[in-house]
């Protein structure tokens, strides 16, 4: 009985806090998506499907699709860059491994807004980089480095890369590199050995890395807002506009529920696959 009381004391405060300020607000979001907007920018009474029907407005499917597409491309690029890094780090030993890992992680200790701002300043039309490229004749005088999809993708990769590097590194660290030598001895080419032995060997890390990049990427708002143009808006931008621009809270709620449903897909896939891994060890 005492044990149960202790458990309640330890669990209670945080659990209640999270229920009050995380679970209830999430449910409120779902409820508000079925409410009408009030004229004062608040939430009206009664029930309606207006906000959900408005998702059919051709604008939203395009933006939803762009959000998913940009996030998927970001994930693929992040994994492609993080794999060789994890491969190199995992093979190293001792002090140098720690130093190189630090070198990769240090930039991400800086403020997120500042990192995005740094890119905005670096790529700025009046900045050194564009002026330099123009005078070298590499880009035309009218080419902008900023306010386009390429800039959004690059900064997204820049931002989410550590979420791919860390789990892949953790998996590569546990990988037995002598297996690669064995594959080579048995006649596999270097690439074949990596594809058929290394990649399956770190599959769990790969899965985690995928989810850890894809999920926050889907919720991007700052990056398209600062380095993208009007044609690069993602769902996050629309949520912010409906919230603070024209103040249609039920519409913001609907878009958020849609985003939540999309992010749940990778989450459930990873959860399910990890669980299957654990019950049926390969």
């Amino acid at each position, binding site marked *: 009985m005492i044990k149960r009381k202790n*458990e309640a004391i*330890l*669990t209670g*405060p*945080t*659990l209640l*806090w*999270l229920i009050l*300020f*995380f679970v*209830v*607000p*999430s449910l*409120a*979001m779902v409820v*508000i998506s079925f409410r009408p907007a009030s004229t004062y920018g608040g*939430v009206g009474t009664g029930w309606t499907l207006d906000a959900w029907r408005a998702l059919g407005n051709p604008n939203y499917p395009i933006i939803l699709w762009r959000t998913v597409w940009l996030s998927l491309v970001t994930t693929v690029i992040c994994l492609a*860059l993080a794999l*060789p*890094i994890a*491969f*190199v780090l995992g093979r190293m030993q001792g002090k140098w491994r720690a130093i*190189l890992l630090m070198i*990769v992680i*240090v*930039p991400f*200790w*800086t*403020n997120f*807004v*500042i*990192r995005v*701002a*740094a890119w905005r*300043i*670096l790529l*700025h039309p009046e*900045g*050194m980089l564009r*002026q330099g490229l123009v005078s070298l004749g590499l880009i035309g005088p009218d080419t902008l480095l900023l306010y386009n999809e390429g800039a959004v993708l690059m900064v997204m990769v*820049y931002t989410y*890369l550590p979420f791919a590097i860390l789990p892949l590194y953790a998996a590569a660290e546990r990988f037995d590199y002598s297996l690669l030598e064995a594959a080579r001895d048995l006649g596999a080419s*270097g690439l074949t050995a990596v594809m058929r032995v290394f990649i399956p060997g770190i599959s769990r890390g790969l899965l985690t890395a995928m*989810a850890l990049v894809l*999920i926050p990427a889907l*919720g*991007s*708002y*700052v990056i398209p*807002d600062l380095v993208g143009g009007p044609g690069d808006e993602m769902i*996050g931008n629309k949520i912010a506009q409906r*919230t603070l621009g024209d103040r249609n*809270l039920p519409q*913001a*709620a609907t878009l*958020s529920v849609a*985003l*939540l449903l999309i*992010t749940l897909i990778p*989450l459930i896939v990873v959860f399910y696959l990890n669980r299957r891994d654990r019950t049926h060890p390969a």
Partner: protein
Amino acid sequence: MKSSRLPVIVFALVVVFLYVPILFLVVNSFNEARFSSTWAGFTLKWYAALFDPQNRDIWEATQRSLLIAISSSAVSMVLGTLSACALHWYRTRLQRLNYGLIYLPIVIPDLLMGISLLLFFVALGVTLGTVTILIAHITFCSSFVTVVVLGRLQGFDESIIAAARDLGATRWVAIRRVILPLLAPGIVAGGLLAFTLSVDDYVITFFVTGPGSTTLPLKIYSMVKHSRELPLINAISTIFLVITFLIVWWSQKLNQDQTTKSN
């Protein structure tokens, strides 16, 4: 060995990619030129300009950010430590639910947490401001502190508690004199992480802030968005960088000292 050169090249290029924008910022904070298109000589005037009375709002925002970060990390250190102990010592159905609830705020996009809290506060008619920012920050910080302290607990030698109890320590004495000192480095590391996350946060704060409650990231964002005072942003960012490095270096050292001591 030729085949292993490609990963090394990718590694080197990524390091360049990671550092270029940051170094550019730092170098330009000492650049005399207003626009970063040319180098017009070394200056400290942008740093001096930060102390100009007309930029007082930057300091007000900094103070608010620090106040929020200190209070939210203090509260989340308590909440996070409690829930980490609960998760570590009990294997009940309640803890499985608890585990999921702790991890969800970490994995879902922060934007969703911001908007749902905003809708919640609006539905309740709560005035948005420093208090609502504080509540939001405590919510996500607690989860992160829990994870850090939980990691520390995994290397915990349970027999020490049994030994303390055998030697006549009451439960409270055991908690105060044995468990808390052993967990302290984890709790402090979690608190430092919470502090940096809170100071760093833009997205969630953006949703739950009210008029007159601008934090430093919000202030920087609006300066960046309107391309105003870009050299000032360089200077603030450089100061920010130095401070973050010091905090992280300190928390790393704290963890390292503890691991070498326990070995």
